[in-house]
């Protein structure tokens, strides 16, 4: 792979420019908020007033963390809410960290203090983070039901923001999300490792992880198949069958002229035209690629 030197130089300049700005702007509101002089009091103290929350928390994954996982760190309620002595003494809800009152970035930062590894490894530069979404918009650390401390189940949780997908999941052709055989997270990593929050580096690699029979590489390839599955398909649901963007033959004829056969009256006889102009994949059935040539000796995907 050839490296474009200009791009590398550009990246370096931007990087060092950013570092410079960081040095001169190393302040944030969260740090100021945390300058309250308080000390840690322990989760048992929290229990005295917040018994329900304490009992719920105890049975969550956070309540089961082992000492070796968080060496040198505070565990329990104050791991996220900060030292609580002033809050306890003054009984003032303002004197403790409430994630609800922080900006999305500030509240996510508390979570990222521990969750640095996969799948959160790329969270700070993810689409969700850059859209003002925080961890607690989807996760409830006190949640005891369900998996991954989610506020509600996938896909219901995703549909709260991505409403347009509610309708497309109900179109006649769809992946089995409505039937609870798949979830949005089967394809998307909401923490944003790769582009478009995909679980693979590219769209095709994602599709091939389940549809491996279409990955080839074939001797006779269909160009749009290797370019991008989404040239013909819309994975979120369509009216046309097989998640095709449009029904055949319209979809195919946008890129290919229809038949004009010199050997028989295919184009003159209206009945024959029905055969040739209804559904291209009746004959070109191996449309995703084939290792066999067609009768002409070329790859026409008929075999």
């Amino acid at each position, binding site marked *: 792979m050839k490296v474009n030197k200009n791009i590398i130089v550009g990246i370096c300049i931007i990087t060092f420019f950013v570092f410079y700005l960081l040095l001169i702007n190393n302040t944030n509101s969260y740090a100021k908020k*945390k300058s309250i002089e308080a000390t840690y009091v322990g989760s048992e103290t929290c229990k005295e007033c917040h018994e329900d929350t304490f009992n719920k928390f105890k*049975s969550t994954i956070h309540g089961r963390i082992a000492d070796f996982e968080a060496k040198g760190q505070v565990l329990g309620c104050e791991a996220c809410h900060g030292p609580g002595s002033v809050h306890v003494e003054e009984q003032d809800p303002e004197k403790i960290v409430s994630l609800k009152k922080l900006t999305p970035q500030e509240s996510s930062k508390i979570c990222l203090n521990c969750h640095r590894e996969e799948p959160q490894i790329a969270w700070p530069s993810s689409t969700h983070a850059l859209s003002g979404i925080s961890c607690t918009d989807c996760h409830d650390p006190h949640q005891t039901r369900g998996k991954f401390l989610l506020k509600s189940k996938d896909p219901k949780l995703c549909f709260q923001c991505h409403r347009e997908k509610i309708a497309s999941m109900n179109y006649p052709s769809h992946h089995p999300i409505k039937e609870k055989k798949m979830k949005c997270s089967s394809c998307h990593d909401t923490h944003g490792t790769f582009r478009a929050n995909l679980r693979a580096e590219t769209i095709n690699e994602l599709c091939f992880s389940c549809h491996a029979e279409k990955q080839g590489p074939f001797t006779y390839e269909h160009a749009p198949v290797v370019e*991008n599955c989404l040239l013909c398909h819309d994975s979120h649901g369509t009216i046309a069958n097989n998640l095709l963007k449009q029904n055949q033959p319209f979809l195919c004829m946008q890129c290919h002229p229809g038949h*004009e056969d010199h050997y028989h009256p295919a184009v003159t006889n209206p009945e024959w035209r029905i055969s040739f102009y*209804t559904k291209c994949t009746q004959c070109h*059935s191996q449309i995703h690629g084939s290792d066999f040539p067609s009768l002409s*000796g070329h790859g026409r995907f008929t075999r």
Partner: protein
Amino acid sequence: MSKKITIISFLILFVWMINPLLANSDNLVLFKNELAKKFSLAEKESKSQNKSEFSYYIAPRYRFLASKKEDLPILVSGLSGGRVAEYQTVESSPGADFYIKGSFGKRNYLDLSGSFIHSDEQKYYANLDIGRVVRNTTYFNRFIHRLDHDPLTNVEDYHEFVFVDSNPTDEYITRRTEIRNRTELVIPDFPQVKFKANVRYIIEKGHQQARTLDQCFVCHIDAQTQEIDQRTMEFILGTEVNVKPVTISYSFMSRRFDDRATPLTHVYTGLPWFAYLGEQEFAHIPDSDKTAHNVKARVKVLNEAHLFGSYTVASVKNKHNDGKLDLKNFLSRLSANLIKGLRIAVNYQKEKYDNHIENTISRDTSIGVVDLFYHIPKQKINLRGKFEWQKVKRSHFEIEETKKYITYLSASFYPSSKFNGYIRYKRKDINNPFAMLEDESPLEPTQELLMTNLYTDVNEVICGLNLTPTSRFSLGGNLFWKSGKNEDINSKENTYNFIINMWIAPTNKLNLTASYGFLDSEIKNNLIYGTDYGYAMGDEDVPYNRKANTFLISLNFNPIEKLSFLVDFSITKGKSNFDSSDIAPDIAELTDLDITHTRLSGGFSYSLTKNMAFIAKYKYENYKDTAWVPEYNGKFHIIYFGFGWKF
């Protein structure tokens, strides 16, 4: 590539080195005074955690299919889309849901749950955590997918063809079983290092229709029943090192795909100069192997600055033709706060797709993104602007270079907890989009022919509002508009999509959710077709129209403490058609779609005792396409009865 890796490595090293110098970390401010005081909930609880605490639930039931056999063709769409019970079994059968959840010993935890509906429809999940040292998760998921069966109605009256299909009602189904197991191991003395082993095994078994084309004086389509017996086995072994401020992970993936079905053959007849004659294999699915190495790294420069990189080297081999392709993907991102509230992310991605099979496409893709996010706390507004640049260079393909420029702007606002909204705009300018390009047009042999379904200019707007005037009522809506045009070929698209949601809870005992979605889309493109006199193009761009209406309603009602009702209803009407009058006058009835899919499920649960409930449920689906052959429509009624115990 090696230069790039070196530069990025130095960058990471540099950042790591200077990090302590810059580490005026508010994180340290937060914890510096009390690190020694470890009031650990886990510590205090550890003694009491030696006892076992489990909760159990089991709900056995029986499912009755209440439909007549003739109501259940459940087949196939052929040319049309959708089908009733596409991913569901509908036979009468016993079943059960269950879970076992709880802790045992010191910090050990088990979560086991499952749902058995039918031998072809079952799902299980198991999560075992042994002292936070070994964490193992296993998923098992099996479901069916009813596949296409093309009745070839459009050709049977006019062509001689061989048709050896089985009964599609029973046979054209694939049963998909997926088993996934993920194991994580942490050595307590070295908690910074995590080892991972993932296994994924997919079995697809069933039958599908396979077709091939033979040719003599007329065309023949041979449709045969093809056995499906495909296995995908995937292993991932990896490790992750997490030493502040750096996280590095490495994984190796091996995926093997095997098709174990008996190959199909057909005796090809024809003229002597055809490429092959006699008995030959067709519809072959090649076995393949894929291996991939992936390294990901993130370094935290300051509290708000992160550098992330990912590098993947993969190789795919087709074991039938020995064809091989190599994939390389490099991704880097830097995100940081420029000034208070203003965040920047700079992305760069390079992908190399190198196919070693003769005359196949290889591709180099470069992508650069600058993303700015500005949060205004007082006005409670988020602003985002993004510019993306993409370049794709291809070999062995007529469109050698494509460039894309994507601009994205968005604003979201939440002035109060009762009101929020957003608006997003995206513009794409594309030079030479992926297309079919031939040296000679059949219409004008002296000119090139360019055909594509992609656009050179795309504008998209999506906006939404949410209102929550009271704690018992909320209303939200989204509007999406897309306009696309390709000036090179004079094609265009206009799409509108609107969805509105409402949630209302008039009392504590009743809540209702309703959604309505509307889609209206028109695409116009040039279609070239054969005539008596050679090729022709329609006088005007041929329009393709799509319309869809979706209505969903869900109701929860608990009239008394012991009794709860749940009802879900949805109806989707989808229509699509195109003006084929110039191309072939009679194909409209074979390609147009006018589908109505209705689903209703309702049931109740009545608590007989504190731990036991009686559960009943009714489910109905009806799929109807009035534009396609009516005998493919289907409906079913299913009734469930069962009990649930919780203890």
